[in-house]
């Protein structure tokens, strides 16, 4: 008996006559952590952006929790984005606001919660990720690792049901990757459903419940990390892993 949280079926997406996603299917269960791997340009970012409606699909359906059609014509995308969080490679913090204001902005304005309530919630989250001392700093005073953790906290403050991470460690100094991955590990242990694109194969092996290899716009191969990394079935997967693990 599985409990599907997000169901992606037959999704196509093209940019200027070039199809990036070609009828892609993927379904993710509640509390599952799925890692997307694949060559640069294979469509990992595009898929994540389609899932929370930052891109419109050309065909196919994406359904959240069996009740919200992300791809529907009449769907209010603001509702979708409230329930699905995303963190990008470039942290995209708001530079004119303190860390605390970055985190509380959308709970206050979107969920209409009181300032005091948002503040408490934000401080609890910042504390949990070792950022309490930074609450009143501006983003330009943060290291890359701190900035990325603030971006994660900011997305978490909306209490999303599903969290998307798009290569959140790619822009970081290698020394700072660990602290961000620790934060992701913590979320995984907390039971949040995750889909993440990453080039950190070691980390993928450790936290993923399932690894999906994207190629030519579809999920070419998927399975447990042990299966995909240990005994890949497809030629393309073998080539990709050989290249990246070298």
């Amino acid at each position, binding site marked *: 008996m599985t409990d599907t949280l997000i169901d992606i079926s037959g999704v196509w997406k093209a940019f200027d006559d070039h199809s990036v996603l070609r009828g892609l299917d993927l379904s993710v269960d509640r509390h599952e952590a799925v890692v997307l791997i694949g060559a640069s340009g294979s469509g990992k970012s595009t898929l994540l952006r389609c899932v*929370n409606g*930052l891109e419109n699909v050309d065909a196919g359906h994406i359904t959240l929790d069996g009740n919200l059609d992300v791809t529907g014509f009449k769907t209010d*995308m*603001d*509702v979708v*984005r*409230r329930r699905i*969080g*995303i963190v*990008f490679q*470039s942290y*995209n*913090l*708001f*530079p*004119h606001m303190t860390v605390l204001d970055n985190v509380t*902005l*959308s709970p206050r*304005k*979107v969920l209409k919660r009181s300032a005091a309530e948002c503040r408490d919630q934000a401080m609890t989250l910042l504390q949990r990720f070792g950022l309490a001392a930074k609450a009143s700093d501006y*983003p*330009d*005073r*943060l*290291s*890359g690792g701190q*900035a990325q953790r603030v971006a994660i906290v*900011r*997305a978490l403050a*909306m209490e999303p049901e599903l969290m998307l991470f798009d290569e959140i460690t790619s822009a970081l100094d290698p020394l700072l990757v660990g602290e961000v991955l620790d934060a992701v590990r913590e979320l995984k242990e907390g039971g949040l459903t995750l889909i993440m694109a990453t080039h950190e194969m070691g980390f993928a092996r450790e936290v993923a419940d399932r690894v999906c290899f994207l190629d030519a716009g579809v999920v070419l191969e998927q399975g447990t990390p042990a299966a995909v990394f240990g005994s890949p079935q497809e030629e393309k997967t073998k080539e990709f892993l050989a290249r990246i693990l070298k």
Partner: protein
Amino acid sequence: MSASTTAPGAPEVYFDPVRQAHRRKRARRDALVGMASLLGFVLVVGFAISRTSGWPLVQETFFNGSEFIATFPGLLDAFLLNVRIFLIAEPLILIIGLLVALARDLRSPLLLPLRVLATLYVDIFRGVPTILVIFLLGFGVPALQLQGVPNNAVFWGTAALVLSYGAYVAEVFRAGIGSVHSSQRMAARSLGLTSLQTSRYVILPQAVRNVVPPLLNDFISLQKDTALVSVLGPIEVLRQAQIDASSTFNYTAYVGAALIFIALTIPMTRFADWVQARMRKRRTMAGTA
């Protein structure tokens, strides 16, 4: 990270006293040499000018002491009108500029008329010389003798300045909005903020910050252009100087008026420079994050 590398108890900065004394001495010497050089330059140029044959006449016509004393208080008085025009026009220009900038970026098809209007407004008022707008409104509208429409020259002169500068400032704001990276909008939308909330809380505050220096420049320009209203007749500072000059055939009053404008624009220019320098510093700091 930087301070934590020094040993506990060690001072934050340390200079070798000999080196520091040398540095101080050199700074003092540089300042002295600079002042002496400048003074010498002024003396030589001043002396040369005062020895030219035309100088007494120039001094008599433009820098006449008694004429200055006689006209300056009246000029200052008249200048209050320029200040009033400026203080009324500037906030209106900011409001119109911002609204027009926002209207030009509207995406909703229902609001297309607004977008077209805003674009037309900017195209027209940026193309027509300010003084022409002042003539058109200041002489044209009162000539229509419309019921309930003021026909006071200061009103229409100010309105013309507002319309003319509003178009410029709208473009400044629009450039500011464009300078905020699109990833900021994407990040805000992905947090569930609506398009309007995104503009209000994320894009505009950054855009406005980015355009403070060019806006200050426009303020300075507007301070000077309040004198254009004189063509409609109200006694502001330029008009007053004109009256003074034409009654005595002496141009000292014009120089007095110029001094008043300079006295106001120099602090404003220095302030704009200071703001710009501060923002550049902030930006280079932010660039490392």
